[in-house]
Each structure stands twice: as structure tokens, then as C-alpha cells.
């Protein structure tokens, strides 16, 4: 029994270690979200929370039902596969009740530059310009129809 008496301090340290481990588990239990790992390496409750959020995008079909004239122009041009709300913003409210909310027209001098400013990371076939040299602040829609932008493709204004 003498060994246990002389090793008593080691048991105390072990006790401290166990306490620290329990504190670790306790804090971990508190900071790790309850539903984490239920389905995978993420918080399962996030699915319900995201699904419960109000819908903001109407989807291009909702736009096309009413704006058939624009669809006709758009289908002929390079922007045929660009979603309406990619430029006009989320418009579920407008689609639900067109009178309650009218979307503002985007500033093409800013909007077009987001995709078409020259960058080495873009494919070489992608139309890209230096906006300052190309138009010097003049809105792009002055020359290009944003729904079918090619000038020789009949989309020019």
C-alpha cells in the first residue's frame, strides 16, 4: 500500500487531468451545435432553417410568362442562357404581385463591367474590355441591347 501512498500526488494530477477533460467535453458540448453530424459534417438543423426562409427568386419561367417580347429578343442573342434575375436581382415579390413592387432598371455601366471587365482568368473567347478605354463611363446600353448585346447580331439600338 506504500506505493499508493507515495504515488498519491500522481492520482491527484490524474484527477486534475480528468477534470480538465470533463471541462473540455462540457465546453465542446456547448459550442458544437446540437444537430451537428446528424446527416454529415454539417448542422442538420440548417436544412430546415434554410428551407424556412422566404423565397426571394421567382425563377426565369415566372418572368417569361409575362415578358414574352423580351424573351423573343433574348433567345436570339448571346445572353439567351443568362437568367433574368442574374441582372435584375431577386424578384419573387414582383412575380407574386407586379403592382406592389416595380424593379429598378440596373445601371449598365456598372452591371456589364462585372462580367466583361478584362481579366487573365477568363477564357480568351469571352468578350472582355477595359471599361475605361471602351466606353469611358457611357452606359453600355447606349450601343448594346443588354438582352442581345452583339451589335452585328441585330441587337444594336
Amino acid at each position, binding site marked *: 500500500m506504500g*506505493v499508493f501512498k*507515495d504515488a498519491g500526488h500522481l492520482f491527484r494530477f490524474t484527477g486534475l*487531468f480528468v477534470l480538465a477533460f470533463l471541462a473540455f467535453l462540457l465546453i465542446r458540448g456547448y459550442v458544437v451545435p446540437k444537430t451537428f453530424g446528424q446527416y454529415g459534417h454539417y448542422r442538420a438543423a440548417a436544412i430546415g432553417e434554410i428551407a424556412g426562409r422566404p423565397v426571394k427568386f421567382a425563377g426565369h419561367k415566372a418572368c417569361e410568362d409575362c415578358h414574352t417580347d423580351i424573351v423573343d429578343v433574348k433567345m436570339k442573342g448571346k445572353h439567351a442562357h443568362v437568367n433574368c434575375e442574374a441582372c435584375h436581382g431577386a424578384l419573387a415579390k414582383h412575380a407574386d404581385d407586379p403592382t406592389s413592387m416595380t424593379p429598378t432598371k440596373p445601371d449598365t455601366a456598372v452591371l456589364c463591367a462585372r462580367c466583361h471587365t478584362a481579366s*487573365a482568368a477568363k477564357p480568351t473567347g469571352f468578350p472582355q474590355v477595359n471599361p475605361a478605354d471602351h466606353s469611358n463611363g457611357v452606359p453600355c446600353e447606349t450601343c448594346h441591347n443588354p438582352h442581345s448585346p452583339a451589335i452585328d447580331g441585330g441587337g444594336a439600338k
Partner: protein
Amino acid sequence: MSGVEGFMYPNEIELQWSVLIVLYPFITGLVAGAFILASLERVFLVEAVKPTYRLALLTALAFLLDAPLPLQLHLGHPERSPEMYFTPHSTSAMAMFGYVYLWYLMAVLVLEIWLDYRRDIVILSRKSKGLLRLIYKVMTLGSSNISPRSLAIDEKVGWVVTLIGIPSAFLLHGYVGFIFGSIKANPWWSSPLMPVVFIFSAMVSGIAAVMLLYMSATKMRRKAIDMRCVDTIAMYLFYIFIIDFSLEMLDLIHRIYEADESFRSLNFMVHTRLYFSHIVIQIFLGTLTPLILLFLTQVVKLTEVLRKRVYATSGCLAMIGIFAMRWNVVIGGQLFSKSFLGYTTYKMALVTREGFLVAIGLTILPLIFLWILVKLLPPWPEQSLHAPAPGD
């Protein structure tokens, strides 16, 4: 964009890992290196380095307490960043941090220091007064048993802890190297040699740091430097430095011979943007110069004064060299584009959360921790305490 040359992808232009991420492996390396030096005496029975045994352990602890702070500052979100200790996970090398850190802190360093100092702590808890007495009392964990038998048990358990500590120190720093070495998307980092190079460079920097700390602290205390001790440390520093340098050169030769698709780009980077920090500072000033100096001490009979100066110079240069190595790994790995056709620049901020002043502060902080630890637990051999008589 100023500082950008050639073709950079937009997300590569600004460096995400700043000087704080350079500090992290540097400081962790000092921990691992200092511990390996301590283990020389304890496990490998190198009696000559005994005067630095306790100082090496305290140095390792002081730097270990500081090691995660650069990461936390880098993470931002002070309300969330401490979670990195409590939510470790095996899904990624970075998420393993909590396991690696807490294991090394609690199961190795704190336990070994406590076992080694237990006799002193008990004696100090009887001798000191006021708040200090209370601190020592808490540190005894309520056990004042310092019978020869209990101290013999401490000695045996301490030996086992050091034995476990050696692979743990390798694991701690190997892990840091693994984080970089396992990033297969980055050819500057992706190398299975990376953990090994990190471990040996850690040993170089840790041994150099303890040697410098021992020499400067002894000088400040106006005591005589134990030359047998410093000579032995310098000898080990020299040998380990040779292994470290050979491994780094092996990595370099392998890259040159393999000459994969990234080689031209990386070669250009080393000869331009990284020339000063890699070729001049790391290789010539921080590796070859101290190696030549240490080689001289091994083959030429120098006077004591000269040897001290050579050790101090080569120790400082080795520390600078290892810091430059961390810099070249962390910063260098972010200077080139994945397109291998462009290069960016790292401009260190001055007074921001990840700026120069914070980096200086985090480098000084472990020395403050060490000063407190040394005051609390004197590591000097001549200050060995005598147990007061039972009636005291």
C-alpha cells in the same frame, strides 16, 4: 494592380496567410526543439547539458502558450476563435489542432514540468508568503509528500513522460509541416519531405534558442557560463543543422531533377521575388554562415571568449535562418499563380490585426511568459532548494 506581374487569378492577388502564419510554425518549432534538447539529458543521458534541462522545459512551455495566439488573431472573431481548442476534428489536418495542442500541453509539458519541480514547489509552498504561497500551494495539488520514495516514483514517471514526449514533439511539429506538405494543389508546399524538414529545422531553432537564452540569462545573473554545457549544445546544434541542411538540399535537388510543370515558375520566383529572403538570408546568412562558424569550433581550438562569441553569433544567425525558412515556405507559397504565369507581392501592414507590430508583440510575449515562469520556478542548478527541517 501594383505588385502583380503576369497572369494572376483574382483570388490569388491578395495573400491570405500573413506574417502571423509565418510566426506560428516558427514558435511551434521552438517548442519542439527546446523539448528535444531537454530530452537529451533525460532520456539520452547527455549529462553535460543538465544546466539547461529545466530552462529548456520552461522555454518550451512559454512558447507553447504563445503558439496558438497568432492563429487566433488570424482567425479574427474573438467570440469564436477559442473554439479551435474545443472542436477538434479528424476531417482535416487543420481541424486536428485541438487534439495535437492539448495533448502536448497537458499530457507532456505540464506533467513533466510538474513532476520535475514537485519537490521545489512543495518546499517553496512552505517557505514563501502571501499570494506566492497560495500559488505554490495550488501547484502542489494538496500533496506535500516529498519522501525519497515518492521522488523516485516521480523520476520514473518523468522518464516515461519524456519518452512519450519525444514522439509527441515530433508529432507536434511534424503536424505543422504536414499541414503545408499535404496541400497537393500547391507545388511549393506539396512534398512528403516537408514534415521531416520542419522537425529538423525546429530542432535547430529550439536548440539555438535555449543556448542563447541560457548564455544571456547566465550573463545577466553575473554567473559563469558552463562551457562544457554550451560546447555540447553547440556540437548537437552543428550535427542537427547538417542533417537539416542536407534534407533541405535533398528537397531542392529532387525538385530540380524532377522539374515538373511548376519548376520554371518556382525557379523564377526563387531568383527574383524570393532571392533576398531565400538565397541571401536563409541559405547564405542563416545556414551556411552558422554552419561554417560551428564547424570551426569543432575543428579549431578556440579560446573560451571566442567560442562564446561564435556560439552567440551562430545561434542568432540560425534563428534568423529558420525564421526565413518559415517565411519562404508560408509567404513564398502564396506569391505565384496556379497558372504558373504570374506573381504577386506581400506587403506587410504595420498596425493592423495581422501587422508587423502584432508580430513583434507575439515574438516578445513568450519571453515575458518565460520570465514569469523562471521567477516562479527557478531553473538554475545552483539554486537547488533544501527541504526545511520539520520544525521550520
